[in-house]
């Protein structure tokens, strides 16, 4: 497990809650294609190629307290983009990797701004929860996912900085760096042989119409069973092979490539 908390941000809870309500109502854009259900995002600020200054977007302007806390906490000269990810009602992002371990596109930090007991993240075979205001480093070269299985919306601040050799350098003040190996991992039952048989049995039902929804179903299983989230794609491929349909096998292989080795 590589993801871990590296510090925290203190907010004025009342001010933050008001700002988040405004952004949530006006500015989040739903994501489809790689997410299931209610999963949306919103860019607060961005540094365009060749520019030295981070440009605050309208959603960021609607959240002066949040932006002030970001500016005082993080090394702004290294920040590339600041976003919000919103998930609710079973919305989750399919297990995926974002880049190769030896070629990170950025250093990605998560800061939960609003969360609940059914908001989870995962890396490999570990499902964990992040606390409000904690700054988490996520290694996006590992298969990972995240979602919220409550009607309450989970909101994470995502800060992408230039890929750093040292996590200390992501903070405005190096003294803010306070790594912890304490992990609030969710205890999950192991995948049983009955579970595996049920998954394999989907070969009787898989078609071109439902391959994508089957992927979403398989991608959610690791939130309930202790199993590597990347297994999603091995199961899907085995189901497709079990159907005897070459087109489905080809699509399942493409899903696996798209989500686990997009850089190859």
């Amino acid at each position, binding site marked *: 497990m590589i993801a871990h908390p590296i510090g925290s941000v203190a907010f004025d809870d009342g001010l933050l809650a008001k700002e988040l309500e405004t952004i949530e109502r006006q500015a989040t854009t*739903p994501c*489809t*294609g790689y997410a*299931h*259900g*209610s999963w949306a995002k919103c860019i607060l600020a961005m540094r365009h190629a060749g520019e030295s200054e981070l440009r605050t977007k309208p959603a960021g302007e609607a959240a002066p307290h949040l932006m002030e806390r970001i500016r005082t906490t993080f090394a702004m000269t290294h920040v590339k983009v600041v976003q919000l990810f919103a998930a609710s*009602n*079973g919305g*989750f992002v399919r297990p995926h990797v974002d880049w190769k371990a030896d070629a990170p596109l950025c250093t990605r930090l998560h800061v939960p701004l609003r969360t609940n007991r*059914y908001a*989870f993240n995962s890396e490999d075979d570990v499902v964990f929860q992040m606390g409000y205001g904690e700054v988490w480093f996520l290694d996006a070269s590992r298969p990972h996912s995240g*979602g919220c*299985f409550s009607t309450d919306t989970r909101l994470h601040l995502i800060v992408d900085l230039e890929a750093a050799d040292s996590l200390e350098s992501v903070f405005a003040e190096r003294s803010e760096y306070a790594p912890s190996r304490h992990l609030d991992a969710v205890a999950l039952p192991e995948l*049983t042989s*009955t*579970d595996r*048989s*049920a*998954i394999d*049995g*989907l070969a*009787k*039902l898989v*078609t*071109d*119409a*439902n*391959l*994508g*929804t*089957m992927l*979403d*179903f398989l*991608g*959610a*299983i690791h*939130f*309930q*069973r202790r199993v590597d989230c990347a297994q999603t794609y091995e199961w899907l491929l085995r189901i497709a092979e079990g159907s005897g349909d070459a087109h489905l096998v080809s699509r399942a292989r493409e899903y696996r490539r798209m989500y686990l080795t997009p850089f190859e």
Partner: protein
Amino acid sequence: MMGARCLGAIRQYSALAPAEIQALIARKKFPCADAAGEWGFCDLWTGPAWTGKAPALDVEAVRRELPTLLQCVEDAFDVSKLAIARVFSAARYGFIRPHRDWMGSEVPFTRLHVPLQTNPRALNFEDAVVYHMNAGEIWYLDGSRVHGGGCLADEVRLHLVLDFAPQAAPEDVLRDRAAHASGPPLPLSRPAMTPAQRAALRDLRPLLGRATLSPLTDLLGTIHYDRQIDSAAAYDWLCAIAADGGDPETIENARATREKYLGPANRSS
């Protein structure tokens, strides 16, 4: 007897400017919480019968941007009875879960679909019948029946959706009723569900829980596209799988999902 039926076709469909269809595809769409994958809608303009809470939308702005589309609509329909015109877009296996728009006698609208861009894998359904609407055809959809639709291919399917005043009969909103021929959908032939397939669904019981309920609902909501089965069966299966699993929270969530889309369980589906 089917509620959905084809009322005919827009004769001027061929006059529709392709650039207008592309403009509609490019417009920002809003998602629907009851959809899976890429499915979105956007409002175009409101008519005299609009009674919704949202502000009316000026038709003149649409006339400037989409002149041939508006001409087609005004030539084919009695727009004095129009409440709102929208587009529904589906692509890359996006679909709407089986649902009812209303129950009982209080009908909120008379809804017509006109496919503007489609493909053979763009399908609609009502109860156990799955069918395809051809481009330019005018279709009435009975929202009190269990129905839905989607695009089970990578292409974009674009439907113009016209909601007329609820008291307007579908045929009465056509300007030239005599020029149109009404007919039921041509059902897509699908093989029956086998006992092994039914068993495979029930075998999913240990895997159904809080995280998997929503994606399993979507999965079950696609089975009828390929198997001769009532689309409402998705929710019966969901409830049966949950009941087999025995977890009270999951049983309640499955029941609530069924009720959300089909209405209270004591009503026939």
